[in-house]
């Protein structure tokens, strides 16, 4: 009822003003629902959204091409070596006046404070798309490399879910069971400043971790690489690992494994169907 009421107040002009926020998934949930309700009944606006999406998909594809770097790094490295030599000569020079030395120290200190401050500002932002895709991969990799064992070893999905219930601040779904996957247990992880449930599986000699977490302050990368359970998903291959990330309701599902993305996407789709 509320859904229909808000949709009825969204005119074409309102929708067209929000096309990019809609594509970027940057609308508030109520606005997004209103836009989607409008698109269901307005062919013109739907065509506009599809056209914008088509252009941007193709744009991203062509902008990703690599150009030959023409020995660019060699040129940079040579300059850096020369820079060092110059700095060394300056450091050896003995005749720097007392006042100018103080001024130089003060200027350097101010510069350092400025640079550190700028660096800190960049580091204290919300969890960004690149970190969202990288961190779970690093986590699984360190788990595998260290040879650690899982926190709770069980093949019983209900028992595993029950173990997580008092330990995470969301209602964990029952671990999905698929014919190709062997559930081996779970681990309580902590990254992105929150507790995360990691369901651990083995598949064809590979390790597979399904991280489940709340969606607060996490941005899904704007690029949509695949559809998982009818939802847009981001897919990345990093250092021999594949990572697929999608959102379902207020939870993020992050599936990571040391196997190619092409093999992991069907698994993600099956998991999304089982948990959705």
């Amino acid at each position, binding site marked *: 009822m509320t859904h229909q009421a808000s949709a009825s107040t969204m005119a*074409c002009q309102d929708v067209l003003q929000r096309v*990019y926020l809609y594509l*970027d998934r*940057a609308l508030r949930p109520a606005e997004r629902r209103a836009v989607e309700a409008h698109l*269901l*009944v*307005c*062919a*013109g*606006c*739907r*065509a*506009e959204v*599809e*056209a*914008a999406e*088509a*252009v*941007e998909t*193709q*744009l*991203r594809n*062509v*902008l*990703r091409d*690599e*150009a030959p*770097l*023409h020995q*660019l*790094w060699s*040129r*940079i*490295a040579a*300059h*850096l*070596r020369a*820079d*060092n030599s110059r*700095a*060394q000569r300056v*450091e050896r020079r003995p005749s720097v006046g007392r006042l100018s030395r103080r001024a130089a120290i003060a200027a350097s200190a101010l*510069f350092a404070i400025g*640079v*550190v401050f*700028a*660096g*800190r500002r*960049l*580091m204290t*932002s919300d969890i*960004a*798309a*690149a*970190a969202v895709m*990288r961190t779970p991969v690093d986590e699984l990799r360190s788990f595998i490399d260290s040879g650690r064992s899982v926190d709770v070893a069980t093949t019983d999905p209900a028992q595993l879910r029950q173990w997580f219930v008092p330990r995470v601040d969301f209602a964990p779904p029952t671990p999905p069971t698929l014919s190709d996957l062997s559930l081996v247990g779970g681990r309580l992880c902590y990254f992105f400043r929150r507790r995360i449930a990691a369901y651990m599986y083995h598949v064809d000699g590979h390790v597979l971790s399904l991280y489940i977490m709340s969606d607060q302050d996490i*941005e899904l*990368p*704007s*690029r949509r690489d695949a559809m998982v359970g009818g939802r847009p998903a981001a897919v990345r291959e990093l250092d021999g690992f594949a990572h697929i990330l999608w959102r379902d309701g207020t939870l993020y599902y992050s599936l990571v494994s040391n196997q190619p993305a092409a093999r992991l996407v069907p698994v993600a789709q099956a998991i999304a169907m089982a948990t959705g």
Partner: protein
Amino acid sequence: MTTEFVLRDRWLRERFERQTRPLLAALHRAARRLSAQLADAEDLVHDTYVKAFQAFPTVELRDDAACRAWLLRIMTNSYRDRYRREARSPEVAGSVDLDRLDSAVPCREPGPDRRFESKCFAEAADAAIARLPAEVRLVVVLFFIEELSYREIAEIAECPIGTVMSRLSRGRRFLRQALRAYCEHEPREPLGEAVSAGGRHGR
């Protein structure tokens, strides 16, 4: 003393290279769309690395993402220095007036052959991006090539997030108009039942 100095510098240079070199291709990809010529793009990346190396001993970079943001911020400042040197106002430096979107004309009509179309789209995309005003181009490049969020772009470009969204929206509208013809070769699916019962565009 000298040996110690040399060893320290080599260690610093190697650490800098380890941390920043993997980002060379990404920076170059963005620089190509921020520069008129390939040689200018290489100069922009080169300047960025030299400035970054000078500041490197004074920064703490938590991870690759922080390092990338730091390098992009330095590149953004170098880019601004350059376009300000080249033209007093970025809005008149051969760029299109985004308030008059009808001035966006595709480089040529797309042909029937798919490979040709793809090449033509790429050429048209480069040409259209080059016609964007400098600050709009910066935001578009950071968004499409570096895949940064509004917030990350605002931090790198040092401007409010609302300004980022506004510039990005203007740039995307221009690009859509300039490139739309290249994406409209295939007929769309017939409209569903819900549409036939519903409203028409222009409500």
